[in-house]
């Protein structure tokens, strides 16, 4: 591990100032990812700015009926917050599908957005990786890429964003509030993470030093018809091969409003607005869902070991939509979630 200094910021503004006055700084929240990256010699910050003392862990309703999730609130506190459980059960389910109880107790909301990919090659400095070392090449292409992207990848990077929580946030149209040295701004969730194109080292659209202070959920929570379906190689502590977040508004059997986002398939949570439009106004039937699934995967491209994810994603979309329409929570597992 590199020698590094650590300060604890008292305010968001102070944190941003501290960031700009150091050479290789990094923010640290729960530390569930960045410490691993430092120990594995992938990240080498020389200055860490601790965020957990910031007064940013509140979860509170907003004036227009939405919900504001503080950046440093833990994933566990967020998932089990009564407002989240009741009004945004899709978010509750997505968070609980991720990581393990121990990790969720440490990890923060902002940190969840900022976590890096779990690509094997990104973590192994013996292999090339454009995300870790721009220009060195992508070892995952032509390699072992079971957990890699089928949508939106580039010739430079086929990594996926590993979050479950972010898939729900994408479907729920969250807004990311950030603080920069030139002031505050808001980023639509769909614009927050980015595709790799020729700059895979950049996971998101934050400017250097910009700090996430809150995530804001709009009023619409799809609490009646939702599903978070996660398919993975074991029942806990495994990243999604494919996950699907669905929110539906139904009027009788007709879909009035729809949200659809996928995890584990792209460099960012993959929300498909065209697919949502295909759903709206249609009957909530398997035939509709199959058409939509086809549309979502139209441009999907396998990389060898992950070819199966195209068909898996297709089936998962149909299943998730069916579950949401039926008002069932994730029921594909015979084992219920092991959490309290």
């Amino acid at each position, binding site marked *: 591990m590199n020698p590094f200094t650590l300060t604890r910021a008292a305010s968001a503004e102070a944190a941003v100032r501290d960031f700009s006055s150091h050479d290789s700084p990094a923010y640290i929240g729960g530390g569930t990812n960045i410490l691993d990256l430092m120990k594995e010699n992938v990240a080498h910050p020389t200055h860490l700015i601790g965020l957990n003392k910031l007064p940013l862990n509140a979860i509170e309703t907003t004036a227009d009926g939405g919900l504001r999730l503080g950046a440093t609130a833990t994933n566990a506190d967020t998932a089990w917050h009564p407002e989240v459980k009741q009004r945004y059960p899709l978010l509750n389910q997505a968070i609980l599908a991720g990581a393990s109880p121990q990790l969720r107790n440490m990890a923060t909301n902002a940190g969840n957005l900022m976590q890096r990919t779990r690509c094997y090659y990104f973590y192994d400095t013996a292999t090339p990786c454009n995300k870790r070392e721009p220009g060195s090449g992508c070892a995952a292409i032509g*390699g072992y890429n079971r957990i890699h992207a089928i949508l939106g990848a580039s010739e430079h990077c086929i990594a996926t964003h590993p979050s479950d929580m972010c898939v729900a946030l994408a479907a729920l149209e969250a807004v990311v509030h950030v603080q920069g040295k030139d002031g505050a701004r808001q980023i639509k969730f769909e614009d927050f993470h980015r595709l790799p194109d020729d700059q895979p080292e950049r996971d998101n659209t934050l400017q250097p030093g910009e700090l996430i202070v809150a995530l804001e959920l709009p009023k619409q929570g799809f609490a009646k018809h939702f599903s978070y379906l996660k398919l993975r190689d074991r029942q806990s502590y495994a990243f999604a091969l494919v996950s699907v977040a669905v929110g539906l508004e139904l009027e009788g059997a007709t879909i009035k409003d729809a949200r659809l986002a996928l995890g584990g398939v792209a460099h960012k949570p993959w929300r498909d607005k065209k697919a949502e439009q295909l759903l709206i106004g249609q009957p909530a039937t398997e035939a509709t869902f199959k058409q939509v699934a086809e549309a979502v995967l139209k441009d999907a491209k396998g990389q060898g070991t992950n070819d199966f994810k195209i068909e898996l994603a297709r089936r998962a979309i149909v299943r998730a939509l069916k579950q949401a329409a039926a008002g069932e929570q994730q029921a594909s597992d015979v084992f219920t979630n092991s959490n309290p």
Partner: protein
Amino acid sequence: MSTDSNTKYVGKAPNRVDGPLKVTGTAKYAAEFDVPDLAYGYVVSSPVAKGRIRKIHADKVLGLPGVLHVFSHENVPGLAWFDRSYKDDVAPGGSPFRPLHDDEIKFNMQPVALVVADTFELARYAASILEVEYEVEKHETDIESKRDEGYEPGRGKTGYMPPQRREDADKGLEQSAHRIRHEYIHGAQHHNPMEMFGATVHYHPDGKLTIYDKTQGVYNCQQYITKIFGLSKDEARVVNLFMGGGFGSGLRPQYELFLSVLAALELKRSVRVTLTRQQMFSFGHRPHTLQTLELGTGPDGALLGLKHYALHETSRFEDYTENVVNWSGMLYKCPNVRLSYGISPLDVYTPLDMRAPGAATGSFALEVAMDEMAYEAGLDPLEFRRRNYAEEDQNKKAPFSSKKLREAYDEGARRFGWDKRPMAPRATREGNLLVGWGVAGGVWDASMQKAAAKATITADGRLTVASAAGENGTGTYTIMAQIAAETLGLPLEAVTVRLGDTTLPEAPLQGGSWTAASVGTAVKNTCEALGEKLLKLAQKMDDSPLKDAKPEDVEFVNGLIRLRKEPQQSVVLRDVLQVSGEREIEVDSSAMPNPVNMQKYSMHSHNVVFAEVKVDEELGTVHVTRVVNVVAAGRILNQKTARSQVLGSVVWGISMALMEETVMDHRYGRYMNHNYAEYHVPTNADVRGIEVYFVEEEDPHVNPLGVKGIGEVGLLGVAAAITNAVYHATGKRVRSLPIYLDKLL
């Protein structure tokens, strides 16, 4: 007034005697011993699979304050010359890997340097910036591309039995009414014990070493170290009191031992070397194995012919072997059998025995093939096994010393409800889920090795028994305490067991499921010898009621020595000690297998596993909802620790069936999922109802305790039973493990 059984501990279910130490964190593991003035070593691993080290640029690293030394082949002093000095007790044939020996890279993640510093963090940082220049050569790591290059190995490794044949397998198959032939595959698997390898070497002022190492055999490590570094046994004491899991990974000395001793001797300072989780993937593993099974039966389902071939990887420098195919000639009755076996060298580290080595692999293929054969012959898979029940060991042409596999079939079928199973696949559906039931089983050696023990009783009636055997977490401390307490009629609390130290009497490696039989018998013999001494002292007491008794006339129960025929004629053991005036009495003894019985009988444990799976066919997900594992392994010493062993085996079997695989990127010759996040083993959420039953066998031949060991047998058949259940659920036959969801899409 029957309190007779108070000190009868064997076969009961006492708690682990070391439980309180473990749950309070006071049980010390190899990397936890506090020694003064400790330096820390961090291993630098090769990023390439084959090639040469051109140059190590250590100047920058050595310039960091607190960095003490960078050990590499460039500066390691002259050590033992011949291969035999590097061979440990279970080394396969060949030339053992010597860490930091020369510039040659033989496998990926090979240790190429050890950076030693005042703190662990500094050593790690220094290692991360150490510049090593490599000359890369072309490597070969894929067994699939070496299918036709397997050769039959020699008898280099202890315990390896060359495969046999009997009569004419081809003819038997030709005469068969039903035949199948398929290939079965699993990838490499790593032991991945929770505790990573580590050694703390205490360098004493007189230059002697106390070496706390993670190992399954302290004597094996002592021998290795003393031969390589030219030390006397007195100069290298090796200690291992507890292990956070071994599963075979600690059978051979791992390189943290060599490196920490090297550094301690050179720096004349205490040194600790711990490996990272990633480095736990840099040595032995269960090899990637390809198997072909061919079976044929008559119209009645009686096996007429069986052929089983296995091929797996080994390293370029050692011929690793395991008994993969042999079991197929033994588990079922079949007149015509051909078993064959090959290994193929690759640029990887030598594989290493991993829980039920060979049998876990072989029983997977055999037991899935048996299921396929049953369907081909139109028979219920359990009924098919009953029809081909082996009454004797046809490999050895000898009767079994005991075998209650049929009773295990009955018990398991009843507990599981097998009679309600529809024969046809895809017959049971629950919503989106298909439900399937499968059965499989296995056979494992009931071995015994030479072992020694020491027993000391003090005037206060406390007994200490000691042997250098290991405690892998399996319950060795507990069962030895039970045996000792029962033999001398003492309360369990009065017995202290000492293990894992080369200052104690020699014991075999903790492996092969032989510790209970070997060390247990040694402890029993030693305590009996101590009992004879105590009887003599008792007979010297005034008016002793035991005056004319011979050792076989008395028993030690509830703190008394008493006449078997007249139990009211007794003396209190503690009185004997006090009256005798002896401060303590010590006895050494040992145990050996009985060669006559070994010749005469086939000694084996058996098991049968019934599994239920639920498969979401559309999504490919498999859940193991119920497992019943019935084990016939002689006498069970401790119902609780034995059950735990088998529970763990079932969890591992679920792992082997559904998750476990070390995946190599052959372009780099490097395992890519080398961490706990991506090398999947089951979590609590993956494990549901497991039931374990023992069908106890009275076996007077196997050893004086009548035990067969249960460390390995419980794993057998689990992966096959799950695979067979998946077929029963879905009609899809998966022949390569693990059964990832995409194999069912």
